[in-house]
């Protein structure tokens, strides 16, 4: 990160987005759908990365923010008949409120305590989705009916589950999250977040209230994760407690560390890689977890800072 003109990295990010836009015309159906889903999950990972990568806070409870978005959108559309946009906003609002509340409490801790406290809040959240089974159908979850997912634009309209609509809306979410994260880390605020990550005490002595900045980071991170959750509910029409469980807190951690924590494009790369690692290896063998596990270890031995993190260290220092 330097004071030099930041044009190069903007070009790179726009090129990635253009590439994702372009490949939709050539992708085979299966991968078309996969990439739609990967972009949504990568948005979740981007949100996670703002916290772990740029602020240095390791949360083990991000499933709760994803689930807040998922259920915020899913329940309002399913039970209250919200239209998709209102449902999305409801999900966003739910995640926003939750992240403010969690931040005010959990950010009083640091380091491993923060890890465990977020983990426990998320666990409580997971149990809540089961406890209110009357509305959520607990672990089994519920399906959003197609007719609720129609978006009317003027005289015409489209359905969210239409593959093209789904792909491009996922791309829209991803674009907003990716460019949002780039703007953030390139901004004055992003510089402070990084300073908090590097040395919180020193940052306070520069006149910054580190707590407020950590709270801001957590709220942006949680809301972005919630946006991904709400989008997932609306585009893929399934809402279930699985998404609130611990593995969906571990997964974004894995994706981000794999791609490179503290790199804007790392979350996408990690999500993409992990998805296809499972997809391809589960076709090869029923012991695919063995391959995934071995791949993780080999990768981390070869690139301990994640792929893009290591690349930045060795080859491309300007990578954001």
């Amino acid at each position, binding site marked *: 990160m330097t004071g030099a003109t930041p044009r190069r990295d903007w070009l790179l990010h726009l090129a990635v987005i253009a590439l994702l836009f372009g490949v939709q015309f050539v992708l*085979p*159906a*299966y991968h078309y*759908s*996969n990439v739609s*889903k990967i972009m949504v999950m990568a948005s979740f990972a981007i949100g996670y990365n703002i916290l772990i990568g740029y602020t240095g806070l390791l949360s083990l409870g991000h499933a709760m923010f994803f689930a807040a978005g998922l259920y915020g959108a899913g329940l309002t559309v399913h039970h209250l008949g919200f239209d998709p946009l209102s449902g999305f906003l409801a999900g966003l609002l739910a995640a926003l409120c939750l992240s403010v509340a969690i931040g005010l409490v959990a950010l009083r801790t640091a380091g491993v305590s923060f890890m465990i406290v977020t983990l426990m809040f998320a*666990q409580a959240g997971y*149990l809540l989705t*089961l*406890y209110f*089974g*009357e509305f959520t*159908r*607990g*672990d*089994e*979850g*519920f*399906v*959003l009916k*197609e007719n609720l997912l129609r978006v009317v634009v003027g005289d015409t309209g489209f359905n969210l*589950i239409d593959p093209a609509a789904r792909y491009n809306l996922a791309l829209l979410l991803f674009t907003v999250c990716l460019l949002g994260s780039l703007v953030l880390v390139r901004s004055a605020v992003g510089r402070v977040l990084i300073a908090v990550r590097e040395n919180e005490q020193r940052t306070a002595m520069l006149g910054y209230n580190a707590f407020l900045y950590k709270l801001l980071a957590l709220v942006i991170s949680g809301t972005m994760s919630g946006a991904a959750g709400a989008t997932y509910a609306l585009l*893929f*029409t*399934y809402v*279930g*407690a*699985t*998404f609130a469980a611990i593995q969906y807190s571990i997964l974004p951690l894995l994706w981000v560390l794999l791609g490179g924590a503290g790199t804007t494009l790392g979350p996408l790369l990690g999500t993409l890689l992990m998805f296809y690692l*499972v*997809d391809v290896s*589960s*076709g*090869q063998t*029923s012991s*695919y*977890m063995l391959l995934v596990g071995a791949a993780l270890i080999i990768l981390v031995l070869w690139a301990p800072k994640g792929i893009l993190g290591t690349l930045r260290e060795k080859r491309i220092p300007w990578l954001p």
Partner: protein
Amino acid sequence: MDHSKKDSNTKRLIRVSRRNVIKGLGAASALTASGLVPGAMRYAQAQSSAPIKIGFQAHLTGIGAAYGRWYQRTTLAAVKLINDTGGIGGRPIELVTEDDGTDPKRGAEVVEKFATEHKVDFVFGTLFSHVVVGSAPTAGQLKMPYFVVSEGYHVASGKLNRYVFQPGITDVRSQVISMAPWVAGNLGKKVAMIFPDYAFGHDHRDFFTKAIAAQGGEAIKHIPVPATETSYTRYFAQIPAETEVIYHVMVGPGVLTFVKEMGEHFGSKRPQIFGFIDSLEAVDMASPGLEFLDGTYFWEAFPRYAQKDQSAFDKFYRQAVGVNENGAAVDDPKDVSTYSHMFGCWETLYVIKAAVEQSGYRSATPKDKAALIESVEAMTDFAESNEHPQGAKKFNGQLHQVFAHQSISKVEGGRLNVVHRTAIEDGMYEPEADYRTQSL
């Protein structure tokens, strides 16, 4: 017909299709590669004897793996048998297996992969409810006939879509309500229920509570057990003293602990105990700690232990799948099957076979699929047979759900002996949905 040769061909076909997944080749080219169909004849053959591709969505890893393995064995046995006896309308089944990790997100992806990568004709075999519910929308959107073997009350509740069927196993609502009359009449009227505190358990709670009340009994206590629980003893303490019957159902790897701790808690001074075999699927009745279960009762869909009046069909089915008369694997008597669930895979494949043959289904065109779906919906009765060894069934095309006889067995000397068999009508209820009104 030379059986041994045909056998090896079938095996090869299955193996090839597995590798097919690896290489991402189309089915036809895999057949070519296997030497089964000469390349030049490929197209001509496709009309008459190209395989019917069926995607098997299997829980090979994750929490459902104990069931998934037996689902896979049963499925492979049925596919082999169907292929050995002329396939479906002369076409062999090519089975493509994908693991869904017992995860609803991956489940949906697997259905997608079946439809767009493997280009299968149908998808079948899902057990866990959350995977079914998570995958069903994808099946509907891709217009992929999706046959689940789950026993959950999701298909019949009307909240899925027209492409999802459950023709091989009854749903939990039907199972539960058919038990109430016998429980009230023979065991007692004051029932304490212990069940997992999530959707599956809530279905048991809601439907049985109503059903027992209709019999003049009462569910005097509901004891939900949280999903993350690994120890159960303290829940038994909540059972009221006046309880006449304990009704229990538990799933997952903790089931044996649950049953064992129940025994330790009560000893010999216990009320009547009635449970769902889900609490003991894939568990050896001779396991240490289960002695106390002697004299208690279980719901079974399909009696695990061969009964005195065992039907010829059951005998045939056991032999084909490789299950001995105690419900365990022939080659490993300690390896106990999920006998009350896995027959659904077998029967479902035969329903698919019948539907293809009746509808004249040829390939995955919208027209053929519509015809297939309508022909499944038109089915009403399945006679007890080698194809339906569990017994006769009634299929409700409006609900896409099948209804069957259920068994109640008593544990005697470490065996489960059937003491009552319900009528199909005992498990029928007023339909709340009609999938046929949805467009195809």
